[in-house]
């Protein structure tokens, strides 16, 4: 166990961030809070840069949610470094978090009372100690965390299974609207607030975020393989597992390859 474990706090409400920091200082004096950030985008960026042992992520934050920040973190986390222990903080039961109590991913409900935080700190300390004792278990811990993140992300998206399915993508260029049947789409790629729609022949841009688009696609037909990529399963010809745990996808009708992140690598297994 590192003598002075480091932590990152992502919380958009300044008082709550200060409060958590003060409570942690009292309960766990060795813990060093190396950064406090106020939005989801900075949460993942700073965590990647500072590589703390523990991350406290608020669920509802501007930029992106704590879950999405955790997803970005899991996808871009470097090889060979122990993945941070995640603690989600929420004011209300937005997600099925309680199912994950006391496992790789912990959670706290605001207002965070002392007994609950004390328990959380004890679990974090125990897990850090276990990691220090058996360094080989690091990759297992990551796989366990990934498993839970998959569950959480799935729970967030599965909330609206009855949403109408899109049959045609309507991409506007000036005063011309291109109609693209969804069957023709090879993959969708997030580009800031837009989504690039790539077919075998050409590409279009639609003014919609991937998050808004996703519930309108048939999950059997279109697979999310990365936080910014959704591919049509029928358009994938082969998948090669890389050393890093990522998967490289070859596509029908497109020269470029796509990368499926560790979070979605489990989709591509031999039967």
């Amino acid at each position: 166990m590192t003598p002075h474990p480091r932590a990152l706090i992502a919380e958009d409400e300044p008082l709550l961030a200060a409060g958590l920091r003060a409570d942690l200082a009292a309960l766990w004096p060795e813990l060093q809070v190396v950064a406090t950030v106020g939005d989801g985008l900075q949460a993942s960026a700073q965590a990647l840069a500072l590589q703390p042992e523990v991350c406290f992520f608020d669920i509802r934050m501007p930029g992106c949610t704590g879950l999405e920040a955790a997803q970005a973190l899991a996808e871009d986390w470097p090889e060979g470094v122990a993945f941070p222990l995640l603690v989600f903080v929420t004011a209300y039961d937005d997600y099925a978090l309680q199912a994950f109590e006391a496992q790789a991913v912990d959670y706290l409900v605001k207002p965070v009372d002392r007994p609950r935080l004390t328990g959380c700190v004890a679990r974090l300390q125990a897990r850090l100690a276990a990691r220090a004792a058996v360094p080989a278990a690091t990759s297992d811990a990551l796989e366990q965390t990934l498993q839970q993140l998959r569950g959480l992300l799935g729970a967030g998206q599965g909330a609206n299974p009855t949403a109408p399915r899109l049959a045609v993508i309507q991409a506007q260029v000036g005063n011309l609207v291109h109609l693209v049947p969804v069957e023709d789409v090879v993959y969708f790629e997030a580009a800031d607030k837009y989504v690039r729609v790539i077919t075998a022949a050409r590409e279009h841009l639609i003014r919609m975020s991937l998050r808004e688009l996703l519930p309108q696609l048939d999950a059997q037909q279109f697979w999310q393989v990365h936080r910014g990529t959704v591919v049509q399963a029928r358009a994938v010809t082969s998948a090669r597992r890389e050393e890093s745990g990522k998967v490289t996808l070859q596509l029908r009708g497109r020269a470029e390859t796509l990368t499926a992140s560790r979070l979605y690598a489990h989709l591509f297994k031999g039967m």
Partner: protein
Amino acid sequence: MPTPDSCEIAANAPLAPAPAASARLRAKVWRHVWVVGGLCVGIAIFLTVLEGKGFIPKLVYSLCIGIACTLIVDSTRQAVAWGINRLRARQGQPPLANRGGWSSAIPGGVLAVLMGPSLGMTLGDWLTGNQTPSLYQLGSTSTRITLALSVLGTVISFVVISTQERLATTRALAEQAQRHAAETQLRLLQSQLEPHMLFNTLANLRVLIGLEPERAQAMLDRLISFLRATLNASRLMAHPLATEFDRISDYLALMAVRMGPRLQVTLDLPADLRDVPVPPLLLQPLVENAIKHGLEPHVEGGRITVIARAESRAESNTLVLTVRDTGSGMPAAPSLAPGSHFGLAQVRERLATLHGQAASLTLEPVADGQGGTLVTLRMPLPALLSKPQSKSATP
């Protein structure tokens, strides 16, 4: 712990199920049976007393005539109403609310008096095995009595039944309105006591108590008056615009503690509009939307501006309330999340109930470089307060 989604579903369900169509039909049939049956028994008793013999055959004839008359009146009304509605539909008018009232009852009544007695007598003859001479051979006293009683019975039963029907309709409408009001109140409460808002505020308060007890106290005062206003809102019909602005300022003060420097607030209420009566917490959902969908998800935060203005035109004066945020703007695609447009729909509904077409609510993106969303609410300014400023501004 219930998820927000399940709360939403519970709020959408009506408080009490509306009476089913089959239940209404059953009530109607029973009404007919009681009124017509009662009248026929009465007539049979009357005739028995008059003639002094044979109650049972008289009851049979009386019931047969009563049933025949009722069937003729009702089927004629139904047919006439159906015809009228077909005509109205062809002219693009909505169907009649009831079955046409008296206009469709008169032909039914005439037909019933002409045909009911003879039909009923024939049925009665068949049932009792008697042979009564044709009713149309006027002259015999009993025939005249039968006809007179039929006319009287038909008129009485029609009046009684249609009065009862009207009462039942009125009662059903009143119940529906009450249910509607209760539902709106429940939804209002639920949206204003949103758990996310409540628990985050309490979490801030918890921290503030340790750090700055005096500020914590001020925040608690704001929370108390916000909660009190929310709970009272469903009981009051209207409160002054100044009070409305006070409540918004309570809510925004709570949000300002939570969001820190990310939230700036401008409230602008001219003195001469302070006393204008408005429905309680009408603006609350709009301000809440501006925070929740505009500023909270916006990394840089921004400013919310609430302005009240009077707009004078030749024929009428209008109160214009605007809520503007410099937040992340409206999404390109409407959100699919349940309840995401509930706030707006609720304000529209309240305005429509109070002012009909005279009030409006619009939502538009702002293209002035700062971005965000502008919501404009217009409603008639009560005449009392819309006098020239020079007079009403002096206290």
